[in-house]
């Protein structure tokens, strides 16, 4: 080959090396950035869980103790300080499960109607539902309390379930509307022409195709119900108390026992962490679903 050709291939190769090196550098920088973000996000959780296994003194020591002998005494103290804690766990589970099931069913049906049928004022209804998310929950607490007093729903699981449904319905409807809108109407029309009645069409065509979206929405609802604090704290006292609402019991004016608080916190956080770990790919699918359509 001629000298000019040789020079050209040399330069081309150099450019390729630069591009590859550039890519590798970008990868490394992104990795480092992600690592830093992960540490900032996860450190508090790590700290709480680790502190749960320390003694009271170990929690306070400065500089912090990284290596220590784990002990369960904080957990024992949790159940001593709050005789109700076991009941709170069951309540959290029951209330969350039932709330999510009911919210998903009712919300999906409403979303299907909004997505498929051109009802008068459906645009207004959609926006109205969305607007309920704008106001902070705490603004509704007093009216809820008064109404619940009238109906004897204070400190009942039913009351809490109703409150959860109220809060989460708009989110569910909004997300499910996006899910249903992504399923082509033409498929349902084809099924109708094939002779399937409307409910059969929903059962055999719409729901199977919407399943990833339904699961993602249900996961979000689960996390929101489990962590719900404001309504749980004000509308329950003892019988229907849920885990997040029980947390303030570990705070007192004089002295905060950090190890006990951490242990209680761990018991609240860990179930959700395990849950999220197992359903993470549905969560990711859900995050990208409603976001694009809306």
């Amino acid at each position: 080959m001629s000298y000019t050709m040789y020079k050209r291939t040399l330069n081309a190769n150099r450019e390729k090396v630069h591009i590859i090196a550039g890519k590798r550098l970008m990868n490394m920088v992104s990795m480092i950035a992600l690592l830093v973000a992960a540490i900032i996000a996860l450190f508090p959780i790590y700290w709480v869980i680790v502190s749960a296994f320390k003694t009271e003194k170990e929690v306070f020591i400065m500089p912090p103790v990284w290596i220590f002998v784990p002990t369960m005494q904080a957990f024992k103290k949790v159940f001593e300080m709050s005789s109700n804690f076991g009941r709170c766990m069951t309540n959290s589970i029951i209330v969350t499960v039932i709330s999510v099931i009911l919210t998903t069913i009712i919300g999906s049906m409403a979303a299907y109607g909004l997505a498929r049928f051109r009802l008068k004022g459906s645009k207004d209804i959609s926006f109205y539902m969305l607007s309920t998310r704008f106001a902070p929950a705490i603004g509704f607490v007093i009216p809820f309390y008064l109404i619940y007093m009238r109906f004897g729903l204070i400190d009942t699981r039913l009351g809490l379930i109703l409150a959860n449904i109220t809060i989460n319905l708009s989110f569910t409807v909004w997300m499910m509307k996006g899910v249903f809108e992504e399923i082509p109407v033409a498929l349902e029309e084809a099924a109708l022409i094939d002779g399937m009645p409307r409910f059969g069409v929903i059962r055999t065509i719409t729901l199977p195709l919407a399943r990833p979206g339904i699961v993602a929405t249900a996961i979000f609802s689960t996390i929101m119900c489990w962590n719900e604090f404001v309504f749980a704290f004000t509308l329950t006292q003892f019988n229907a108390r849920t885990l997040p609402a029980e947390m303030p019991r570990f705070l007192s004016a004089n002295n905060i026992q950090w190890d006990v608080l951490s242990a209680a916190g761990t018991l609240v956080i860990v179930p959700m962490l395990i849950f999220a770990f197992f359903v993470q790919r549905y969560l990711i699918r859900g995050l990208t679903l409603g976001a694009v359509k809306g």
Partner: protein
Amino acid sequence: MSKIFLEHVVKKYGYITALNDLSLECQDREFVVILGPSGAGKTSTLRMIAGVEAITSGNIWFDDQLVNEMPPGERETAMVFENYNLYPHMTVFDNLAYPLRVPKRAASYAKEDVTEQVHRIANMLGIDTLLNRMPDQLSGGQKQRVSLGRAMVRMPKVFLLDEPIAHLDAKLRHQLRAEFKRLSREFNSTIIYVTHDYKEALSLGDKVAIIKKGELQQVGTPEQIFSEPANTFVADMIGEPAMNLIPAKLLIEQERLFCTAKGFKIELGDYERQAVLSCGKNVSQVYIGIRPMYLSIANGSENKDAISGEIYITEPLGYKTQISVQINKQLFYVIVTGDYSYSIGDKIVLIPNKQKILLFDRENGRRITIV
């Protein structure tokens, strides 16, 4: 019996009129093609017949039964969609079996019957090796066959096909057009086929209805549409290259009818003379319509009904050549078969086949015929 009658059907979407007063009759077991450009309202018509689109006004009758409000499932129609609409979460087998498993048919089809019927139809369409695949693993032609199979599997009274081969490559389209023709003979159903391709209309239909912007232009057999177009739109739509439509003037000299434009003066025959006279009004501005295949090239001998011009472009297309001849800033298209030795710039003389000349009123585009 599966006669379909559309009576003064109107479809409006808000303020837009998609279909304006369409009346069409499809006889039992007839193959009717609805032909028109995009946006003409063909798909709306089909969807209203299927029952998935509401009728703004007018009536649709199936065998003397009014079906305006009848839900699609009860209409005994099957539809093949333009983009196939296969159920993506089911195998090909389940897609084909779906119509047989719906509640109203499940009673008459036991599991073995379903399998047998699905296999029968799959064999007929050549997709029996694909029964375990999912729709996203199929090519366009295969998807189209599955879509067709899903419609065929329940032996409906009426087939509705919405541009079923529009998205396939030319060769496959040609192949499937022939197969459609064969299949239609085997089925005892009325077929309504919607397309924008005139070739499908001419080759497949017993009857062709041409629609433009929601208005019916003409209904007739393929021969009628081809040789007796009702107006310039129909004339222009059918045939490739399109019919030559040349602006001209009519004159009557000594009881003989001539059409003239710059560059030629052609005497027209008896039929045309009677047609112009019976027309009722004084028509002088017309379009002369003559198809490219009815123009021949003079071989030197004198001919008074000749048009002379210059070759503008030649397009060799294998066995035939398409020549555009420029005559006084007008382009005439001629088709020449066999060998040729013409090149751009050559002077050329064209002789029209006078039997095949059509006259169109320039004012409204309608063909001038004996009333």
